[in-house]
């Protein structure tokens, strides 16, 4: 119990990922939803860093680095989209966008 192994980090990562999933699924506020999706990526990053650490390999850190970059770009685009959507409809509730269905 005292020795913190890879498994610990993997489990932590999984738990964080699951929290992210909860957020993604239950959030109706798009902004908050995007935040939840950031949690997903962060959760993975922890695992990457841990695996890299336990293998003594830098690839994990590389991956995590790129994931951060991706997350950042996503935020930019996501917010851009959100802004026009908000300008149009004056809301960021995703329940309002169901004009297409079936």
């Amino acid at each position, binding site marked *: 119990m005292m020795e913190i192994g890879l498994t610990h980090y993997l489990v932590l990562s999984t738990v964080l990922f699951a929290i992210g999933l909860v957020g993604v699924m239950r959030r109706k506020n798009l902004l908050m939803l995007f935040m939840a999706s950031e949690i997903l990526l962060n959760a993975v990053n922890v695992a990457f860093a841990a695996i890299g650490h336990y293998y003594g390999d830098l690839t994990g850190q590389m991956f995590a680095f790129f994931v951060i970059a991706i997350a950042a770009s996503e935020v930019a685009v996501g917010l851009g989209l959100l802004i026009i959507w908000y300008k149009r409809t004056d809301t960021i509730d995703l*329940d309002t966008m*169901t004009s297409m269905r079936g």
Partner: protein
Amino acid sequence: MEMYLYIALFAPFVGSLFAALFGASPKTLWSGVVTSALLFASFVSSVTLFVYLLQGGEPIHTELMTWMATGNLYIPFGFVVDQVSATMMFVVTTVSTVVHVYAIGYMDHDKAFNRFFAWLSAFVFSMMILVMSDNFAGMFIGWEGVGLCSWALIGFWYHKESATWAANEAFIMNRIADLGMLIGIFLLYWHTGSLQYDVVFAAVPNLDTSIVTLMGIFLFVGAMGKSAQFPLHTWLADAMEGPTPVSALIHAATMVTAGVYLVVRANPLYSLIPEVGYFIAGLGAFVAMFAATMALVNRDIKRIIAYSTLSQLGYMFVAAGLGAYWVALFHLMAHAFFKALLFLGAGNVMHAMSDELDPFKMGGLYKVMKWTAILMILASVALAGIWPLAGFFSKDKILEVAFSSEHYIIWAVLWITAGLTAFYSFRLIMLTFFSGEERYKEHGFHPHEAYKFMLWAMAPLAVLAVIAGWFEQQFVHFVTELLPTFEFHTHHVEMMLIAVTSLMAIGGIVVAVLLYRNGLLNPKLQQTAVYKLLFNQYYIPKFYDEFFSKPYAELSKIFWKQVDLKVVDATVDFIATTIYKTGEGTHTMQNGNLSSMLRWMVIGTVGLLVLAVLYVKRYDILALMQMVFPGLGA
């Protein structure tokens, strides 16, 4: 001689085409005259051929062209004129020439005069094919051809519901029998490799008896239909809906005897299977009596004669079935003459009575229609089998055959039938021409005698009905060149048999004359059960209607509405709509809400995770299961 053969065969065809050309136009006398003339040519050719054979000429066998040839099957349009077919040709052309001439007068006022002659000649052509063909397939052509013409002529007055109904009935009944014949033909082909008479008859003695029996049975089924034997007999009486010359030609003299002809023609086959022969004879005897009983009470002159025909056909089958093929043929010929004559006479009566058929509404017509009456009495006497007319010779021979081959029951049946025959014939004569009062006046008829030339046309038949029997010896000599002879063992009782039979016939006549001398019998008689049974033809038509026609129609409706639409088609539609409905039911999962779309993605992932874990941990899970439920076993 081949030329005569082809003239005999194709002259009626040419006549038919000629008349058909004017088929849709109003009456042209020419069509009647030309067809009659061509038939006369055919008649002359037939006689020439007959005489040629009579003088000892070799049978003529020609082949016009190939019809069907595939695999091992080879069917030509081949024709043969031998003693049997020559006899038939003689009978057919004679009667049909007479009927044609007669019909010019009979159909005088009919709108569809030309059409009538087209069909009538077409019938003769088909009949000629039937009798002249040298193979079974060719015979089948004629067989079906006469069926077609019969259909068209029975339903000639197609605006009458009853006529078209009768026509269809005749056609379909015949088709049922034809199937039997077709199967017989298939059997012949697959066991002998050919359908030519000579090849087939040469091959059958080497075949297994059971096979030959089957062949005999199936071919006879065909014969039963065409010759209207029980239980396929009902169409013949209904066929009387057609114009009377048609009845005379088709339903008395020629077509209905085709069955007899078939059995006679296939004698090498039937002589191998006497058991089938006995059955044929037994059925024939039964029909002879059965039909005669129905004729006793009928109130339609044509139907009475039709039943009489049926009865006589029974006689012929008795002879043929017992192996006395020449006797059958002899009776066939004699019967053709007097029965045609009888029908034509009936036609005169109908004409006179504005198509009234009920003899109860006639009576005393002798005064107006003397010649017709004489001719009809002549024919009836011949039918009854009174010496020295044709019927005497031919019918007595059949009784003799039955007695000689020790089938006493058959003999007895036929003997009684002879009496019945005489009775109903003279019942008809008495009711129509004599019996005192002139009942037709009550109904407002103005009868008149037929055209002279019609009577003259009937004359040859009358002559033949009288004299045909006198040539028995020559006939025997002639046809037994081809047909087997029949050994009579009855010389010691011959005279006695003749006497007994003649007495029976005379007795019948006397009874009829006495009973009907004063007109109608007591109407109370009509209330008896026997009368009703006979009058309703043993309820057989009703039975057929109730148990075949109606269920067939009902079943058809069920098949269509219930099975085809509600089961077969509905299954297909059900599959289609199920797929479509599934789509309608499930496409709402795409409700457009982003949350649920995300959830679907997660559900998919989790679902796959479950499967993955189940797969990875399958051994652990199994172990756990066994722990929890130890009773499950490994």
